[in-house]
């Protein structure tokens, strides 16, 4: 199912995950995430998309996990190895969640906080990072005159883009977004989607979309998950025009889910 390519940033090989309570599992997932592209993971709730994102970021609590098998390679490093430095891993792979979680600080501080924690205190460099990441998140033009306002005063769409900017400030390699626009109106959604198209030039993006239509709009590559299995993967948008597996066809045409 997976065609290896030189341009793949992440390779998932024979990955299986079982939680202690047995609720949600992933079974033998093989998937390549192309560099400088948007890979969407879509399918009905409970299919394992979020579990996979959490696994890639090592966000699962080891106590919850019953069993884990296979490999997830970032470049050539197996990120499931116990030797992996989690702080460093999460710096390389940023994550944006469905509900924007802004820190109760100013807009500027929301972005500089992570950098300061890592020891960056040079004001010029911090200012640069603020402007660069806000521009990349398509937010700079809207809010550059009020950087010292509290971040909570921003609209929902702006808060979500601020969260994206905060992730970008740390200069990750990969950005993972779990239904980033599920709480946003269509205009804000469009802005976030547009900025993703810009961002993929520099970053590798994994997106769990909130609808099949968003999956089709944004995907360079797409993977359909159902009940813990990767049912179908396509490079390109073929999965939305001519899926090869009946389960995919049924899902994208709205016959279930």
């Amino acid at each position, binding site marked *: 199912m997976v065609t290896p390519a030189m341009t793949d940033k992440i390779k998932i090989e024979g990955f299986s995950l079982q939680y202690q309570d047995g609720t949600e599992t992933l079974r033998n997932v093989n998937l390549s995430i192309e560099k400088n592209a948007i890979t969407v993971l879509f399918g009905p709730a409970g299919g394992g998309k979020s579990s996979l994102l959490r696994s890639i970021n090592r966000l699962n609590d080891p106590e919850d996990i019953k069993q884990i098998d296979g490999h997830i390679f970032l470049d050539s490093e197996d990120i499931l190895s116990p030797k992996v430095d989690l702080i460093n891993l999460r710096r390389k792979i940023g994550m944006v969640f469905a509900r924007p979680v802004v820190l109760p600080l100013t807009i500027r501080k929301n972005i500089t906080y992570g950098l300061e924690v890592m020891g960056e205190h040079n004001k010029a460099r911090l200012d640069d990072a603020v402007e660069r990441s806000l521009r990349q998140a398509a937010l700079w033009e809207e809010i550059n005159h009020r950087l010292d306002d509290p971040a909570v005063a921003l609209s929902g769409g702006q808060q979500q883009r601020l969260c994206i900017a905060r992730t970008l400030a740390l200069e990750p390699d990969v950005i993972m977004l779990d239904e980033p626009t599920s709480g946003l109106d269509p205009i804000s959604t469009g802005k976030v989607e547009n900025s993703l198209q810009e961002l993929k030039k520099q970053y590798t993006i994994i997106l769990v979309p909130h609808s099949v239509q968003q999956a089709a709009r944004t995907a360079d590559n797409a993977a359909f998950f159902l009940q813990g299995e990767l049912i179908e993967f396509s490079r390109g948008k073929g999965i939305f*025009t001519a899926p090869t597996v009946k389960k*995919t*066809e049924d899902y994208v045409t709205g016959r279930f889910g």
Partner: protein
Amino acid sequence: MLRKSFESEIQNMKNEILAFGSMVEQNLLESVDALKTRDVNRSHKVVEVDKIINKKRFELENEVMILIATQQPMAKDLRLLSSFFEIISELERMGDYAKGIGVINIRMGSEELLKPLVDIPRMAEKSADMAHRALVAFINEDVEAAKSIPAEDDEVDALYNQIYRELITYIISDPKAIEKANWLLWVAHNLERFADRVINICERTLFVVNGRLGEIEDAL
């Protein structure tokens, strides 16, 4: 529930396209029969019906567009709805050939036919029948039927070649027959083009069912 209403809308659309196709087939047969009987009044009606066909084409296109906008179709639904567009415009152009034959009969005025028509009505019947069966195959998503129809185009081509040779013989033996022969050549040419377009409808059936977009010869 949503899926159910979408499916009934798709079925309605298919029925409308079948009815649209029947208008086009009937107008083709009518155009040739009017020529055969040299009935210019009936040819004027053929031209009028073509105007209705042209208008209907836009109405149908609009309905498909509304379905796409409201249902945001994917996969097979998307292939089907995009094929509706293609087939609607094929049928409209096929209708233009009937109109063309009507116009030829009108232009001929009170001139007599060069010869009684035999092969031209056969060509028309064959072409209209192929068009009808191609549409039924499309609507029923019947790949086997859609694959079998293009081969029949050879029969239409054979009739066309036969008519062509016959008319050339007339021209050689009597240069004064050139204009009358030319009229009939144009009629035969229109019928040959009409049948050719039937193949495009068959290609869409394969596309809807298999997701394969391409020339039908490559799939046979």
